[in-house]
């Protein structure tokens, strides 16, 4: 292959969390030779967590991502339960799940309305001055806009009530939670949850009205440029229904058949990560299938995670309205597994409904206001893995500590990394389908961005990596200024 003379650069890619760049190479005929989605950053969390007290990890690793801090906080807290071999009381687990579902609501509302909707409500080729949340509000009306703001704010308030702070919560400890909720708080949560269930219903209806009733959008969703055929992964309960907080990991193959089920502590048996020289982000893949490059299908070890990966990997949703929406989605898309990348947006709204319904259930649970929320660890800390389903997909935290519970090794494989291989293929495929004979306008470039945007990636998360120890010396003087002692820390 000869080096391409023409390239199209999109820098930075926008309406996502974190940093990314798309480089599209055109051949002499002006058609796409290959498109790359590069991640230009690495912060290094895995290294700088070494030497930290393990119980600080939920508060440190949440800073990997300010859009999904609860996901890191809870994955980290679950890893600490495993490190200290401690089982939290029922109420602590329920409070974590309640927090987590509120988190899912905030993230999914923000993505659907602020990041994704501009492409559908304002239009993929609209002027970029208007192609944003303000343009969406101008189209749908201020009243709907205010409903969106209000309900995302509810989700944030509930997280702050339980977690202390909506962004970067502080509640998770090995063996439980730092604070119970009061009956008054429970009532407030219940009433907000009721309103959020209605809001999820409205959101699904907006999707039907704006997207499904527009033939051009339906054609786009079902077009080959936006389809892919990878494995799918998500966490499920004993009925193979989606669960975000706890359960078994289930992976289905490109034909929809179960490929494997495993527990969190078996994660390293099933996943490995590949390094490419053109990106700071690694590519996780199914270890037993092997690294085959950025290729699609059953021979490839790449997976879909996030809303569509989870729904593809499950048999349904555990709550009534969400399950109805699940069935409607698959019957419209022509069965399982769904292969339309843009159907991630629809799946996100099905999950929005599940999160609202599950939050309502938990807010009405008779144990939720119990003050029995801590089991004090008594065993020697060793090693542990915690997995949750973050808004963008499976998130894994793995810590090894010394006998005092200080971090010796940390490994974090995050949601958007799990989907990074598939995302690269989607961007490449969209570019090849949408750019022909050298014709590249603003609309075409944005439509290439729509391919990654469906995944709602978070490249803040992906550029983590956490280390080190700094010796400190305190010199103690008396009131006459004479040195009394040196204290080494």
């Amino acid at each position: 292959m000869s080096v391409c003379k023409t390239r199209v650069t999109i820098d930075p890619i926008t309406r996502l969390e974190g940093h990314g760049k798309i480089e599209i190479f055109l051949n002499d005929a002006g058609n796409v030779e290959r498109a790359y989605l590069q991640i230009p950053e690495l912060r290094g969390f895995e290294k700088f967590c070494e030497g930290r007290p393990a119980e600080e990890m939920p508060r440190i690793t949440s800073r990997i991502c300010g859009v999904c801090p609860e996901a890191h906080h809870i994955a980290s807290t679950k890893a600490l339960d495993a490190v200290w071999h401690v089982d939290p009381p029922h109420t602590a687990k329920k409070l974590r799940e309640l927090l987590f579902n509120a988190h899912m609501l905030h993230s999914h509302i923000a993505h659907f309305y602020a990041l994704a909707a501009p492409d559908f409500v304002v239009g993929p080729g609209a002027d970029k001055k208007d192609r944003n949340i303000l343009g969406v509000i101008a189209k749908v009306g201020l009243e709907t806009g205010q409903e969106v703001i209000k309900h995302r704010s509810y989700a944030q308030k509930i997280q702050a009530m339980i977690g202390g702070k909506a962004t970067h919560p502080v509640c998770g400890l090995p063996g439980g939670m730092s604070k119970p909720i009061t009956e008054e708080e429970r009532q407030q949560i219940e009433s907000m949850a009721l309103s959020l269930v209605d809001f999820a219903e409205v959101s699904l209806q907006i999707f039907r009205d704006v997207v499904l009733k527009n033939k051009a959008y339906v054609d786009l969703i079902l077009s080959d440029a936006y389809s892919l055929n990878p494995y799918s992964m998500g966490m499920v309960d004993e009925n193979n229904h989606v669960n975000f907080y706890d359960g078994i990991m289930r992976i289905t193959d490109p034909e929809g058949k179960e490929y494997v089920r495993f527990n969190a502590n078996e994660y390293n048996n099933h996943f490995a990560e590949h390094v490419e020289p053109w990106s700071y982000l690694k590519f996780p893949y199914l270890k037993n299938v092997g690294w085959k490059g950025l290729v699609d299908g059953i021979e490839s070890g790449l997976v879909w995670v996030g809303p569509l990966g989870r729904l593809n990997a499950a048999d349904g949703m555990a709550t009534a309205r969400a399950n109805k929406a699940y069935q409607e989605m698959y019957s419209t898309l022509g069965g399982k597994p769904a292969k339309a990348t843009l159907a991630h947006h629809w799946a996100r709204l099905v999950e929005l409904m599940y999160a609202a319904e599950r939050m309502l259930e938990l807010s009405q649970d008779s144990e939720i206001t119990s003050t029995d929320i801590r089991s004090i660890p008594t065993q020697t800390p060793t090693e542990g893995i915690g997995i949750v389903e973050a808004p963008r997909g499976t998130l894994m935290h793995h810590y090894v500590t010394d006998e005092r519970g200080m971090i010796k090794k940390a490994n974090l494989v995050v949601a958007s990394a799990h989907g990074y291989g598939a995302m690269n293929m989607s961007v490449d495929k969209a570019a090849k389908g949408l750019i022909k004979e050298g014709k590249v306008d603003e609309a075409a470039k944005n439509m290439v961005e729509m391919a990654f945007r469906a995944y709602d990636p978070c490249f803040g998360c992906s550029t983590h990596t956490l280390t080190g120890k700094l010796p400190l010396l305190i010199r103690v003087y008396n009131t006459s200024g004479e040195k009394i002692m040196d204290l080494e820390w």
Partner: protein
Amino acid sequence: MAPKLQLAIYWAAACGGCDVAILDTDEKILDIAEAADIVLWPIAMDFKYEDIYKMEPGSIDVCLFNGAIRTSEQEEIAKALRARSKFMIAFGACAAWGGIPGLANLTNREEIFNTVYQETATTINEEDIRPDTNYPGPEGELHLPRIYDRVWSLDQVVNVDYYVPGCPPTPETIWTAILAIVTGNLPPKGTTIAGIKSLCDTCEREKTEKKITQFKRPFEIIADPKKCLLEQGLICCGPVTRDGCGHRCTNNNMPCRGCYGPSEKVSDQGAKLLNAIASIMDVKDEKSAQELAATWEDPAGTVYRFSLAKSLIYDYKKGGE
């Protein structure tokens, strides 16, 4: 009608939490959009770097810059935005003092790369590949920014006019800053726009004479929600941390980790806290002091949790790299 304020919002080595915090002003975000044209905001708007480079110097009224400086790209964009902005605001703990990404200054680029691209449990990299700033791909060269050996705060790279603290800043802190900007009612340059007292000064927990006989870790005890956490043996950064956060962590029965940065007149948050803690240790002699000190795990990672990049140990201006 007066021309609208031209506002740029950017993130460097950050987590996106500062951007979410701006959204957390809720319905006020519509007032912000009413008062300002947002000319850059990658999380929510489609403007690209090329749009910034086309702008004239001084054409941006205010730049809210969040995130630390960890790569050559982040430094370039910080300089490009500084050159075009009348006011440059270090927004959030990472821009102000390096924040949690600044903990990477306990190590260096090579160690980070070895861990990430070679040593972690799931990495398989038999060919020992490392990301390359100029990789000759089959279709053409692919570029990545350089990762620096250390993390810098924003004011170590460009001049900063104001600081908005917090990880993330509260909606109240943000709104106070935005009102000050919109009304032109600005404090002296260099001011940190938040409280001036320390968190301890406004904390409502019961305090008696502070004497630490034993350091405790948060998972070891169920802390009394009414009493001073420090007096219960938990390291709390409240004595040296700026007020204005609304006591969000201590109200949740967890100790402060200092995300609002050093309080007024404190130049080095970590050194000041070490000093404060050492002075309340209940010890008789050097031996008992050493024994008690040994029970506090990871003091550096605790007292400098958010401010290592700007600490006295690391504080100097970036010159070359």
